[in-house]
């Protein structure tokens, strides 16, 4: 053990109450930081997993006409941007696009979807819904639909082309259960009768309250579409790279492509803002702890002026004196962060078991948390930086004290 560390330990244990208060500040700062980050990211992650699991990490939509921008000469009077893209509804060469897409290493699976708006009726209830015409086999590989089934069986849907899977909240609205019948109004004005094979719950309110899954060929006839798919959804190995792949697909296929990040930009911004807001709020606790440590160490320096002079007279260097007080800060930061991390983990575990009833943007019956080592890392880094800054000034001040001034004050 170095001399400054030994003396720091002795000085620290001498001022137990002040040390304990400083420690409590760091412990709570770190613990609450971890807990709030785990919560805010927990909700965000659940939303991302649910939306990517239902709608894919990347979606390829309508074909667009190449604009040949380099050849366009803008009119002198026009200050506006160049003309917008021309889109052509639907995807006609689905098999070819999917075959080429599968060659990309990031693509795990892809599935065509024919999408349209319908009116669904059951009993006396009628509502507008979104029809997803899917190929059960490929859709199962691409999405989490099988895992989202909360009533009925997916196999019943697969084996029966006149059956549908209804979103959880939509089924609630229409008051239908597996085995019931639901009527769908086609654009031609005819009612088609479907058997409800299963109820699906993605956890995302907008999906669960509007979606009806039907077989692709049946959906094509019902919606009277000339093309077999209005979009292709992709499951990616690394969803974080979806924007780059979407860009590449647009150039390659001349079809509009949208990553999940772009699609959910608004919601993600809300989650991000909440997370930053929580981080700032909790950082203030750590900052306050830092002020506390600054005060404790400043008082410690003032009360140890004589001891500092003695140490200097015995050959302790300025850097040793400074190290004594920095070590005290480091001890507070180290022990505080360690206990804070344990407290953070306990709070996170406790919070994850608190029952709540959310039926809006998300569906959950308890707090959602994420266990991420980075929360612990950043909380510790934040605490160490705050404590170091708080310790540096008193430590520097202690090192600059002239021992002669103290000694001369005692005997001249």
């Amino acid at each position, binding site marked *: 053990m170095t001399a400054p560390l030994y003396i720091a330990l002795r000085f620290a244990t001498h001022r137990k109450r002040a040390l304990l208060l400083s420690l409590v500040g760091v412990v709570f700062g770190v613990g609450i930081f971890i807990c709030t980050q785990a919560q805010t990211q927990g909700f965000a992650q659940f939303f991302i997993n649910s939306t990517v699991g239902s709608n894919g990490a990347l979606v390829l939509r309508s074909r667009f006409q190449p604009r040949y921008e380099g050849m366009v000469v803008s009119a002198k009077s026009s200050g506006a941007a160049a003309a917008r893209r021309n889109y052509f509804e639907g995807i006609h060469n689905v098999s070819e696009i999917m075959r080429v897409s599968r060659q990309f290493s990031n693509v795990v699976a892809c599935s065509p979807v024919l999408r349209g708006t319908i009116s669904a009726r059951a009993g006396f209830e009628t509502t507008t819904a979104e029809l997803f015409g899917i190929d059960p086999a490929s859709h199962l590989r691409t999405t989490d639909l099988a895992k989202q089934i909360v009533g009925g069986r997916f196999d019943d849907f697969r084996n029966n082309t006149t059956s549908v899977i209804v979103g959880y909240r939509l089924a609630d609205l229409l008051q239908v259960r597996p085995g019931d019948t639901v009527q769908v109004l086609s654009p031609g004005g005819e009612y088609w009768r479907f058997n409800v094979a299963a109820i699906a719950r993605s956890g995302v309110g907008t999906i669960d309250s509007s979606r009806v899954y039907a077989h692709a060929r049946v959906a094509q006839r019902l919606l009277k579409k000339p093309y077999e798919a209005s979009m292709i959804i992709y499951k990616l190995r690394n969803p974080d790279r979806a924007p780059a792949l979407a860009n590449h697909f647009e150039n390659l296929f001349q079809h509009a492509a949208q990553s999940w990040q772009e699609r959910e930009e608004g919601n993600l911004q809300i989650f991000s803002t909440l997370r930053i807001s929580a981080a700032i709020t909790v950082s203030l606790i750590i900052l306050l702890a830092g002020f506390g440590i600054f005060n404790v160490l400043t008082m410690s320096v003032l009360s140890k002026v004589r001891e500092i002079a003695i140490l200097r007279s015995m050959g302790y260097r300025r850097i040793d004196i400074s190290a004594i007080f920095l070590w005290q800060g480091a001890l507070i930061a180290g022990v505080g962060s360690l206990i804070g991390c344990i407290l953070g983990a306990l709070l996170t575990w406790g919070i994850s078991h608190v029952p709540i009833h959310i039926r809006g943007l998300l569906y959950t019956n308890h707090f959602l948390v994420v266990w991420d080592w980075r929360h612990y890392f950043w909380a510790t880094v934040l605490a160490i930086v705050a404590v170091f800054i708080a310790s540096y000034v008193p430590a520097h001040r202690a090192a600059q004290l002239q021992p002669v001034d103290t000694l*001369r004050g005692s005997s001249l």
Partner: protein
Amino acid sequence: MKGELSLSCLDIERYLGEEESRVHVLRGVSLDLESGSIHAVVGPSGCGKSTLLYILGLLDEPDAGSVEIGATPISHLRDEELARRRNESIGFIFQFHFLMEDFSAQENVMIPMRRLGQMNETEMRERAAALLEAVDLGDKLRRQSRHLSGGEQQRVAIARALANDPSVILADEPTGNLDTNNSQRAFELLANLVREREKALLLVTHNRFIADACDWVHEMKDGRVIASHPHGERISV
């Protein structure tokens, strides 16, 4: 003069304070301390005794003149190097003992050794115990310094000054805070240890009997050494 030159200073000048309040504290002071010798500096309050001691102890820098430890000039050295020399070569004893209150007697003696870093924990403890034994405090090793009497505290300070086996011991009125009996005892202890171990001792004192017992007495007045007497010559303090 008994042995080799341990510490010397030549033509030391020192000013304290700023501008109008500036005081010329030391005016061309020169001293030589040899190993095994005891020197006393006497003089009225404010004559510059303590300032001289701090300059010789490398805690303060002279405005002019030079200080040498052994034959090595140290005036040009950086603060870190001065601290190292102080740790290795100089032991301090102050009037108010200046012990770490929360440390035991043994731990106080170990403080300079920890900085030196040449011994392990056991060796440091053993050496501290031996030094405290030498000052008759062998039975109070683990007692906190605040629970020791004034005389005992000053003896711990003497043991601490000897911790790193320095060549020079500088004492600023080491008995000034003790009664007559304790003063006599502390000085005799210090003098014996210094002579046994061939150290050079410079002490600032107002105590005539202690000054008389030293090998050399240097009288200071108004920042100057006005007279230096060898042992036996009567002086008025």
